[in-house]
């Protein structure tokens, strides 16, 4: 910093303290906001019970859709933990997902290691890879577009490695033998998978909800809103970005293993393709980035639409993805804060109306 800038900074010291004060207030408010009210808890309860009853009501085909909504929401929550809360937009989250899927599958198929142990191993490997990526990215201060491109490149590196290494089954992918044993992490029926997916989603969502009310959650949001200001307040931005990334990566790996165990087949494109990374981002954008329930709302909107357009326009291959992309574009242009942001805005407007009327 040049002396002129230092002098300027000194001159505005009072102003700066003010700024930091209001910054602190803003961050605190944003974390204390969104405490669940009783009606909200009731709604969540009713939806949960409904989801848990779906195996009794729906055909296998429909159950598939419910499971894919739950798993998409889960993966989106993983992305949300890191990118939504700390503001570091990852475009390569497929890397962690794929590592999770591949670690458990290869350990099981080639080495006969139980998928439950493979799941833990996948989480560890994914966490280590995330630590490496995070260290390189955050230590060298990659932000915004550069960080997005770096995560994308890391993900592509994994795709190329897995596609070209014979020991990792190369392009032909891994097939996991079918069984019905819980001990082999296959839950018998679609209903079994549905319950497990539901538990995974509930746990991560509860975790995200709780974290927002802790000091760490406060630090995450502070880093997202203004990293320099957060640093000025003594928050170790590097540390909290690393924590978020590693936690997010380890949880994504669980999603990957679940996918492999459910569909029983993985290949480099299914695991590390760009569409996989996008599939984690889109629900967050639609529902609201950095909110607790946004990714779930987003997944519950985009997955059925995608499914309906897919079957209704099955004569036009690709049309469902056109719709998918258009929804993404329209949401970003019309309601960049997602469904939750829109609802909040409407509420503020309604509140104002009521006040003027009263």
């Amino acid at each position, binding site marked *: 910093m040049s002396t002129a800038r230092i002098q300027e900074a000194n001159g505005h010291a009072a102003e700066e303290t003010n700024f930091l004060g209001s910054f602190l207030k803003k961050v605190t408010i944003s974390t204390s906001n969104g405490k669940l009210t009783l009606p909200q808890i009731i709604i969540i309860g009713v939806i949960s019970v409904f989801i848990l009853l779906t195996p009794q009501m729906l055909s296998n085909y429909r159950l598939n859709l419910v499971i894919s909504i739950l798993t998409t929401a889960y993966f989106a929550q993983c992305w949300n933990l890191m990118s939504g809360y700390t503001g570091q937009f990852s475009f390569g989250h497929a890397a962690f997902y794929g590592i999770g899927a591949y670690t458990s599958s290869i350990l099981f198929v080639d080495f006969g290691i139980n998928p439950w142990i493979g799941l833990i191993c996948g989480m560890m490997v994914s966490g280590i890879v995330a630590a490496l990526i995070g260290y390189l990215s955050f230590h060298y201060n*990659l932000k915004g577009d550069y960080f997005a491109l770096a995560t994308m490149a890391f993900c592509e590196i994994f795709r190329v490695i897995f596609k070209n290494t014979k020991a990792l089954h190369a392009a032909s992918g891994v097939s996991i033998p079918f069984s019905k044993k819980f001990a082999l992490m296959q839950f018998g029926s679609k209903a079994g998978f549905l319950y497990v997916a539901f538990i995974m989603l509930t746990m991560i969502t509860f975790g995200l909800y709780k974290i927002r009310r802790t000091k760490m959650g406060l630090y995450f949001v502070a880093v997202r809103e203004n990293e320099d200001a957060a640093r000025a307040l003594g928050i170790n931005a590097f540390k909290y970005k690393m924590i978020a990334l590693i936690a997010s990566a380890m949880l994504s790996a669980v999603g990957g293993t679940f996918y492999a165990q459910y569909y029983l087949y993985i290949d480099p494109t299914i695991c590390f393709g760009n569409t996989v990374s996008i599939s984690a981002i889109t629900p967050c954008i639609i529902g609201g980035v950095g909110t607790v329930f946004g990714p779930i709302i987003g997944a519950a909107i985009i997955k059925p639409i995608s499914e309906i357009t897919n079957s209704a326009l099955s004569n036009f291959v690709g049309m469902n993805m056109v719709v998918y992309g258009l929804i993404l574009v329209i949401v970003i242009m019309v309601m960049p804060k997602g469904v939750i942001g829109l609802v909040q805005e409407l509420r503020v407007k309604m509140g104002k109306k009521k006040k003027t009327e009263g």
Partner: protein
Amino acid sequence: MNAFFQASIDGVLMGGVYALAALGISLIFGVMKITNFAHGALITVGMYVTFELYVLLGITPYVALPLVMVTMFVIGYLVQKVFLNPLMGVAGHNQLLLTQGLAIVIENAILVMFSANYQSVSVPGFETAIRLGSITINKPKLVAFLFVAIIAAGIYVLLEKTDLGRAIRATSVQPEGATLMGIVVPRINQIAFGLGIVCAGVAGALLTPTQYIYPTSGNTYSLKCFVIAVFGGLGNIWGAILAGLIIGVVESFSALWLGGSWSELIVYMIFILTLIIKPTGLLGKKG
């Protein structure tokens, strides 16, 4: 020794096309600070426009080039006007996501319209290669390289010697200042985006004689072009050209020594090293 020369020539010729596409990315980023994730999809659009002109009018990609350029410019101009101008000045990740969304739309719209079948364009007289001793030079690639040189020179002249170019450069340095000087910034943005997309489209058109055309054929180049644009220094046009040639040669040599499928890995490694060591790129100012 022959393999060495062969790989160098192939690398430089291919690098030229990379350079042109990356130049488009750099130009767009330089003026609007937008990372255009739809660039790969628009390369594909360039290919299909060329292909359609070939089928409908029976003209070769080289004759079709001016028409391709006009079409791509209009597409780019409209994309900026309709989708990106309203987002100028909001958080950067929205633009990133928007271009990503557009990429999904474009790619799949092509799939709907043209199906996933592989198409190709044949150019009479250009199927054979030029032989120099034991070295062969692929004719379409050589011609493509010459066109790239002409178009890059054209863009240089446009940016450095004309009023429009001055307005574009002014906007890239300081949009507010440019506005005060009476420059209509949104219009300049549209023109700059249009020019960037022309680069993508022309690169696509020039690839058609040597590459199959299918809905995701431009994607192969998408991340590679970002690698080149960042390696050369985002926003730096000469950097993009230099980096394009370097990456072309590096890729060609790593394909020679490690096999084609691993060459991508080397390219991405270079990218990550660039981001870590000097994110402003080869010719960028110090960060």
